[in-house]
């Protein structure tokens, strides 16, 4: 059986969540692997959310916000944009592969883009296999 990854998606309310809703109203089919959690702005996404998702068993984390310049709160997405490289450095130190955590901009009109991103990310994470954190935790549990 092929490995099916579970991906947690954090989407900002104004652009990306609405874009995902548009994918729905447009009946655009995409991979069922992403579970969406709504936040008001991508700037609300605390790095601990991403770490929590990974330690709780997510194989990947997708963060979506408004395109630069289009933030409902004028510049929240820039805050996320700046936080992201720091988070990636930290994750790399823990041995989390680059492609497991992704930041993308999706506007309210980009239902197709959202679906494409989900499909692409699902494929890439599927190719990577289960998250090393999940594997390590499962190993620890087996040792006990």
């Amino acid at each position: 059986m092929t490995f099916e990854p579970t991906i947690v998606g954090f989407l900002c309310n104004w652009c990306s969540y609405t874009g995902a809703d548009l994918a729905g109203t447009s009946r655009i089919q995409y991979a069922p692997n992403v579970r969406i959690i709504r936040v008001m702005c991508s700037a609300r996404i605390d790095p601990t959310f991403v770490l929590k998702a990974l330690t709780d068993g997510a194989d990947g984390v997708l963060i979506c916000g408004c395109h630069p310049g289009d933030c409902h709160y004028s510049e929240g997405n820039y805050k996320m944009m700046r936080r992201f490289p720091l988070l990636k450095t930290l994750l790399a130190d823990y041995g989390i592969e680059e492609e497991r955590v992704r930041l993308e901009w999706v506007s309210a009109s980009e239902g197709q883009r959202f679906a494409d991103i989900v499909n692409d990310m699902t494929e890439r994470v599927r190719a990577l296999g289960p998250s090393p954190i999940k594997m390590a935790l499962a190993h620890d549990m087996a040792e006990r």
Partner: protein
Amino acid sequence: MDEQRIGVYVCNCGTNIAKVVDCDAVVEASASLPGVVVARPYKYMCSNPGQEMIVADITEHDLNRVVVAACSPRMHEPTFRKALQKAGVNPYFLEMANIREQCSWVHHDPVEATDKAKALTRAAALRVARHEPLERRSVDMCPNTLVIGGGIAGMSAALDLADAGGKVYIVERNDHLGGNVARVDLTAPYLDSASDMLTGRVTRVVEHGNIDVLLESEVKSLEGFVGNFHGGIRSKLHDGGVVDQEVDIGSVIVATGYKEFDAGRITHYGYGKLPNVITSFELEKMLRTGRVETKEGGAPQYVAIIHCVGSRNLEFHTYCSRVCCMTALKYAHEIKAAVPGCYVSDVYIDMHAFGKGHEDFYRRSSEVKTLFLMYEKNDYPVVRRAESKDDCEMLIEVNEKLSGETIEIPADLVVLMVGMEAREDSEEVARLVNISCDKDGWFIESHPKLDPVATTTDGIFIAGACQYPKDIPDSVAQARAAAGRILARIARGQLEIDAVFAEVDEDRCSGCRICNDLCPYSAIEYDEEKGRSHVISALCKACGACVAACPSSAITARHFTDAQIFAQIEGVLA
């Protein structure tokens, strides 16, 4: 914390959800979640009986939390919050799981879609257990309105608002009111004069004591929130300078209209190269002077009208511009009146005659001996210069769909029915007032069917062709609907706004002031004496940027707390 008594309601949405998601399985899985007392499916949760079911269960089972697994919360969260309120439960003890837009509408496989629906519903149940009761805030509703755009839509909305006693600022970029309607001669289907219709409106607007018309002006800034916006307007002065002013308003209507498609972008019609290929707006200009003639000054014997220029094709705009078909039919009447004996042909894809009186108008137009030639979408007619032996100036080659033959028709004047497109700066306007544009640049409404007047930003409304191509009656209807929505709020004097904002726990705050500069609304103040920061709740818009940035975890985002989001993460991954 009180004992958790959660009710979970799984909506079938007719068959919208139930045809893919096994709703009974979602109910069954939810019933065993911690704190869940009752779990039920229902055909339409948002219907009155659906809501009453929740209200009755709250009383009967003493519920204090509710999960509704249904459509997007962007659609029905307010509906279900009201149901909770009706039953005497704080409306923030609701959480929705989006199993329609995120499951049944985007996944074909019933097993995968049902698994995902279970995960989202579980996350909602775990989250709602950590919800806290929040009190909504009441704020004053400023009775003034800013209308951006002085076309037929903007003026119609302004008059209704001003007649009811509200102050209205119309900001118009041009040096006159009237918008695109001011460029039109007669209107379809009744052939009434556009200028007669417009003159009355313009006079009323200009003379109205409650309306400030600001010509050659632009909105430069908009701040604040519903009921309490502050707009910055820049107006040109006659001496070349500018003057800026600030206005306090409670609502904004964006009525910026459309621009016509640039016919030069299609090469095979020869626009810009053949002198007698003109656009519909150029013909309107001739009709208003009462003379239809070629560039050489002669009366055209053959006029050909080409439909869907820039509309309904894959290369430019895929949508229908909706007004051109009837406008084209109108031309047949007007041209024949101006040039008796002239032959008019309509080269079209389909004839869209959807509006009131339109089909009758189509029939009457056929009766005035207009020649109709149908072409296939994306198989454009080709216009070329005729040779000296021909008795006309140009020839149009059409692969005529009904006869299946390639036909050549003569033309001395070719009229291109240019479609509507969003203005180049629609993205800028959207950014200014915090709304969104679709892929074509049209402004996005709050809901395509149930709320086509509001936007995703409370207090900002859209009217007219800036949303999508519209004719005059539809533009006026939307404008007056926007005015009605605003007047309902003005009549109440106050409005309730979301109870969601950030709070600083002063005991945990270290006074580092990182959050102070981070806030886009300057809603965080530093108290020098205490050495602590605090949030001015009326200014906070709840983005949560400060919450994620606080190194002491001293800031809480109400309704989006760490505990609530952690619970949701656990829920989707369990």
